[in-house]
């Protein structure tokens, strides 16, 4: 793998955000809006339901962590879409760049987006609601890593679907992650789900991560939940890469790579 080529993929996206005010704004806009809106909602709900302990912490912690997953996925998929919209994929894929280098470059973009979003949200949560996500302590690290990994797996699968079904499927870039939201039990415990969905949720790494987060806020360290999420993510990352490779090979056979985005 050539680090220069990985850097080139990252640089292309970085230049894009530097040159495009609406895109740069988007990185700050949604996290800010989310934290302000849901922060005030959670304060209001806490006041009106006095029996519910640590409501703000549960809610804002979940919001910040969910955004990590979403930004990690967007960093992959939207960056791919940018190349598709710019009709730049041909130029990229006739260069010596390997598919693995392209993916690695998008992963770097994704990390940058996650970092920016995390800084914005955790700062605002501290300023407006005196909530610090760092209260989760060292457990925050495996939580973040697990959510980022799941975001990447979803991002790679979404990118493969766009490659397979073309520009018509680009809406998936914003939709697929939210498909996992109800069964991720972001804002409520997994116990709330009906038995069938609880079974499904077991195979969704983010559901374990959010359970671990709620546990940590209550002072209960749930290592098993985080370990389960880690194993599942490792499997899903590998499966997503295999899936992408199959779709990419198929795209070469069908000759769609030069036409995608037209």
């Amino acid at each position, binding site marked *: 793998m050539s680090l220069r080529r990985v850097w080139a993929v990252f640089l292309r996206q970085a230049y894009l955000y530097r040159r495009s005010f609406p895109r740069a704004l988007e990185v700050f806009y949604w996290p800010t809006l989310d934290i302000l809106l849901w922060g005030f909602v959670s304060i209001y709900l806490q006041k009106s339901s006095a029996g519910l302990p640590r409501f703000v912490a549960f809610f804002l912690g979940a919001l910040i962590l969910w955004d990590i997953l979403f930004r990690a996925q967007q960093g992959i998929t939207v960056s791919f879409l940018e190349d598709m919209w710019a009709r730049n994929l041909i130029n990229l894929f*006739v260069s010596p760049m390997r598919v693995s280098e392209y993916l690695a470059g998008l992963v770097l973009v994704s990390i940058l987006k996650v970092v920016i979003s995390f800084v914005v949200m955790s700062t605002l949560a501290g300023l407006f609601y005196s909530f610090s996500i760092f209260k989760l302590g060292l457990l925050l690290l495996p939580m973040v890593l697990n959510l980022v990994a799941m975001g990447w797996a979803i991002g790679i699968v979404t990118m493969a679907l766009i490659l397979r079904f073309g520009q018509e499927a680009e809406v998936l870039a914003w939709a697929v992650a939210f498909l996992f939201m109800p069964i991720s039990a972001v804002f409520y415990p997994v116990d709330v789900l009906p038995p069938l969905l609880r079974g499904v949720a077991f195979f969704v790494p983010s559901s374990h991560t959010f359970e671990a987060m709620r546990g940590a806020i209550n002072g209960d360290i749930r290592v098993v939940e985080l370990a389960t999420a880690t194993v599942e993510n490792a499997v899903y990352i590998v499966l997503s890469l295999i899936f992408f490779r199959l779709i990419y090979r198929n795209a*070469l056979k069908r000759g769609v790579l030069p036409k995608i985005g037209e």
Partner: protein
Amino acid sequence: MVILRVEALEKEFARTRALKGVSFSLREGEILGVLGPNGAGKTTLIHCILGLVEPTKGRVEVFGLQMDRHRSEILSRVNFASSYVSLPYSLTVEENLVVYAYLYGISNPRQRIREVLELFEIWHLRGKTTRGLSTGQMTRLCLAKAMLNRPKLLMLDEPTAGLDPEIAAKTRTLLMRLKECEGLSVLYTSHNLREMEKVADRVIFLHEGRIIAEGPSSQLLSSHGVGSLEELFFKVLKG
């Protein structure tokens, strides 16, 4: 020395056979023109050579290496420009080239970028976003990108479409010079048949996925009893 060898290349899509057993070779320092009407298979041929489309049958060898096994190695010495492919609009001319300089592993990218931009007379546009370029300027930028890595094999798909006659002539002169001085080999498609006569050492005529005529322009003209490639084009199409 043979730079590119295409053997019995076939490409079948869902409902069409775009290439039906195409074979030819391209030597070092040679400009090979690919002629043919729309839908003849010219672009599919270029995409197969570049590894963007997987052939159904047949073989593509570049620098004696097979594309499917040595893709990255081959493509570091090849480049491509097409008037139908653009570069990201939100980036400046220079930023676009910086990205490609890294992709092609160019040492001292800033100096090389200056060289290629001066070569195509667009150095003064380096700070401008590509969104603001005219069609001709964009074409020149794509050609500059194609020269960044000092390719040994250049694939050009309608490279001068959209260029004014002066810049088109300069581009042709430049290609001839690079061919003479650096042994650059070029595979060139164009609908501008006069341009093809001036530039190409040899042409292949593709029709419905098959090569139906091949040779140096002068030889093809005399063997078909015509005065220009344009006449040959219509004669061959009429069968």
